[in-house]
């Protein structure tokens, strides 16, 4: 997205930031689990980003920059401070449980959208956010690393843990659903 030098930075900002609006809101809403908090967060993000746009380095990833601002604002918010879970990135992974999900048990139809959404909402924030960035935003590992300010190796290990956690939650919910019928 190359812009002629004689354009004002603010105009460039608008051009870059407006198309991200809906995606950023979706992400904010997932993080905060609350509409008005998500709105505050997005508004704060745009205000901060506009103010700090001169510090944004052309040629680097604007999307990752915006998401990073949003996420840092969230982490320093009341809800963010409350919900952030500290977990040990280096801890050895547990061996798979005996009742690890099988392809049959995890057959996810469209009607299970609600179930997947519930499972995502139940995940700890670090897992939820990395899954959203990878699957919904389709960010590369490098972009995720920039957004979350973590090394690429950590992106891979955290993604792997997040996916395991999600699969086991889904399996629980699928079982629960069957019992409920």
């Amino acid at each position, binding site marked *: 997205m190359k812009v002629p030098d004689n354009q004002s930075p603010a105009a460039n900002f608008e051009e870059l930031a407006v198309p991200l609006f809906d995606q950023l809101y979706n992400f904010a809403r997932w993080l905060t689990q609350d509409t008005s908090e998500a709105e505050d967060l997005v*508004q704060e993000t*745009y205000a901060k980003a506009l103010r700090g746009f001169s510090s944004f380095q052309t040629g680097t990833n604007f999307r990752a920059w915006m998401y990073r601002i949003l996420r840092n604002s969230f982490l320093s918010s009341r809800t963010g401070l409350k919900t952030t879970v500290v977990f040990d990135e280096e801890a050895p992974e547990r061996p798979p449980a005996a009742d690890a*999900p099988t392809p049959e048990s995890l057959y*996810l139809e469209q009607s299970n959208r609600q179930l997947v959404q519930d499972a995502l909402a139940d995940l700890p924030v670090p897992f939820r956010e990395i899954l959203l960035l990878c*699957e919904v935003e389709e960010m590369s590992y490098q972009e995720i690393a920039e957004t979350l300010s973590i090394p690429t190796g950590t992106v891979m290990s955290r993604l792997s843990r997040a996916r395991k956690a999600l699969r086991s939650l889904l399996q629980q919910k699928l079982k629960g659903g069957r019992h409920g019928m």
Partner: protein
Amino acid sequence: MACDAWAAELDAYLDGELGAAEARELNAHIKGCGACVADALERVQVKRAVAGAGERYEPSAEFRARVLKSVAVKIPASQRRDVERPASRGWKWWVLAVPALSVLIVSLLVNFYVERGKSQRQLVYSELIDMHVGTLASASPVDVVSTDRHTVKPWFQGKIPFSFNLPDLAGTDFTLLGGRVAYLGQAPGAQLIYQIRKHEISVFIFQDQGRGMGAPSTPMRELSFSVENWSQSGLRYFVVGDVNADDIQALSKLLRDAG
């Protein structure tokens, strides 16, 4: 290498992050290994489920307008780039000049084919305009004939790989005529036909493929047509018609709000 070792690489492979050489090796292994195929399938399912379920929340139109205005208002008008309305200047003359004559449309289309090919957007637009004109010229333009959105929307279930919402048209000049399945780049989507003052407007909805269309546009004029496109909840909307840009915008807004 044992399956366990491959399993560790599967996620990176499915995320498109595995190096070319490793990806080839993994591919070769998967072809002969049922367990790994099942594992990969399950991972793909979860990936797709998360991608679909994750696109969940829409900002309200009021909130979007408020924040985007707060961003825009700080930019002096003299410095603003006309980013979103590249072709909107001077369109008014054609409102007077363009009666919706099919002969004119066809000749313009031929002309357009000569001129086209400059950008992806133009290619897509020309394809959509073709579909729009082709549909209206057809003896049975729609496959589901109904003015009731609660009839039209469910008709698409099982025919296209996504779902969408349609606006309530009460109190507007728009009428829903019906819908049909349309294809863009081999991908199935929905085509809905609306009418306003005897003019037909096509609304195309496809899954957003890689967001290659760039920023959402305010109505752009292509030949005698106005086209507006935007992305919402993972879907790409195109509104195409030979009505004036205000009508296109009005219908687009209804659809956005219903999104």
